[in-house]
């Protein structure tokens, strides 16, 4: 919120009460960025970096890789910005791009080296959960990192991000039934991990 407000009001942080105002401010930033204004694009980055990084972190289960992926997402966003018509929020436009970058990188790395292991502990970057942990001693982030990548992707998108199977199927180029099967697999593995 602060980034957009500052962008429009010259650094003076004034709350914008109306969603329409925020959208209008965002549209102006997008238009400026489309015209080559790197400062405007940085504002868009600052506004969205934490969500993009969180999604990359969960999909890759690798903190160092998530940093690279986040950078790649915004470089590609810059290249594709001309195709953004402003019909949705910038974050909505960025979302499938983030998923695509994170998963395509995963696939290309898997092709290059089948022995990939996470070198950083993604759980160390997680802020303390807003609610008390339902079961002491269980680290969901670590358990998610051990899931097969396809199952992890569907679990993250469905149970963490709240996407529907139809949305996931469209983003991952899967049949909705495959998405459901992957979720079933992920949930089963996670509840086994919870009991171990």
């Amino acid at each position, binding site marked *: 919120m602060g980034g957009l407000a500052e962008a429009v009001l010259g650094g003076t942080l004034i709350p914008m009460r109306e969603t329409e105002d925020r959208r209008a401010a965002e549209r102006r930033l997008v*238009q400026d960025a*489309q*015209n*080559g204004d*790197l400062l405007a*694009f*940085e504002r868009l*980055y*600052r506004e969205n*970096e*934490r*969500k993009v*990084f*969180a999604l990359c*972190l*969960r999909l890759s289960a690798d*903190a160092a890789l*998530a*940093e690279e992926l*986040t*950078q790649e997402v*915004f*470089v590609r966003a*810059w*290249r*594709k*910005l*001309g*195709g953004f018509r402003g019909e949705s929020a910038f974050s909505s436009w960025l979302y499938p791009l983030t998923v695509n970058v994170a998963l395509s990188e995963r696939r290309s790395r898997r092709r290059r080296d089948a022995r990939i292991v996470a070198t950083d502990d993604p759980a160390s*970057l*997680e*802020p303390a*959960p*807003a*609610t008390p*942990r*339902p*079961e002491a001693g*269980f680290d*969901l*982030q670590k358990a998610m990192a051990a899931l097969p990548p396809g199952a992890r992707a569907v*679990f993250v998108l469905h*149970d*963490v*991000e709240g996407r529907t199977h139809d949305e996931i199927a469209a983003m991952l180029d899967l049949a909705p039934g495959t998405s*459901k099967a992957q*979720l*079933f697999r992920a*949930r089963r593995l*996670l*509840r086994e991990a*919870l*009991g171990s």
Partner: protein
Amino acid sequence: MTCRELDERLDAWVDGELAAAAAAEAEAHLATCSLCRERERRLRQVLAHAAALPRSVTPPRDLWPGIAQRVGRERSWSRAAGGWSPWALAAAATVVVGLVAVLGSGRAPSAVRTVEIPAASPEARLAALSVVVSDPVLAAAEREYEEAANALLEALQKRQSELQPETLVTVRANLEVIDRALAEVRQAIARNPSNLELNRMLVATHRKKVDVLRRVVKLSTAL
């Protein structure tokens, strides 16, 4: 309902997606089976953990400098390539790639080669970039380009029966992309009339449109 059947339907049960009759069966089974109750409890715990995960995580370091460096490099490159913004370059690339793809799928290689015409010379590009365009000059340049584009469109319409339908669809779609780019640059100029970079971009976009039309008309003549 057996334990196995319940296990298969556990996801739908906790997601509230079971039909009423199946839900009643699941509930009845859970009331009497401690093993399945434990499975259900664990699944609900996992989902509670997932729901508690924050949707935003601050990266451990500032990632912007790396992004700015890469974007800045690409921007410099695109300017050196003729003052095109990334999205305008993308639009032009779509046109060329689209044409080659359509032609490549159904035409002999010799037909594809006829699409290529010499681009503007580097000297001409540099000259175009160094021109300071004032409003009346810009308006005159726009008129000239529009006249040229209209003449080429007229020629293309006369020869459209000589082109494959897919080619025409691709050409039309990509001309729309360029026209949208033109409209956006005009809007940007209206907000910031003194921005020379925008003026150059407008001229370059017009030039690209004429180039594309010339290529297509030349192609229809060569077939």
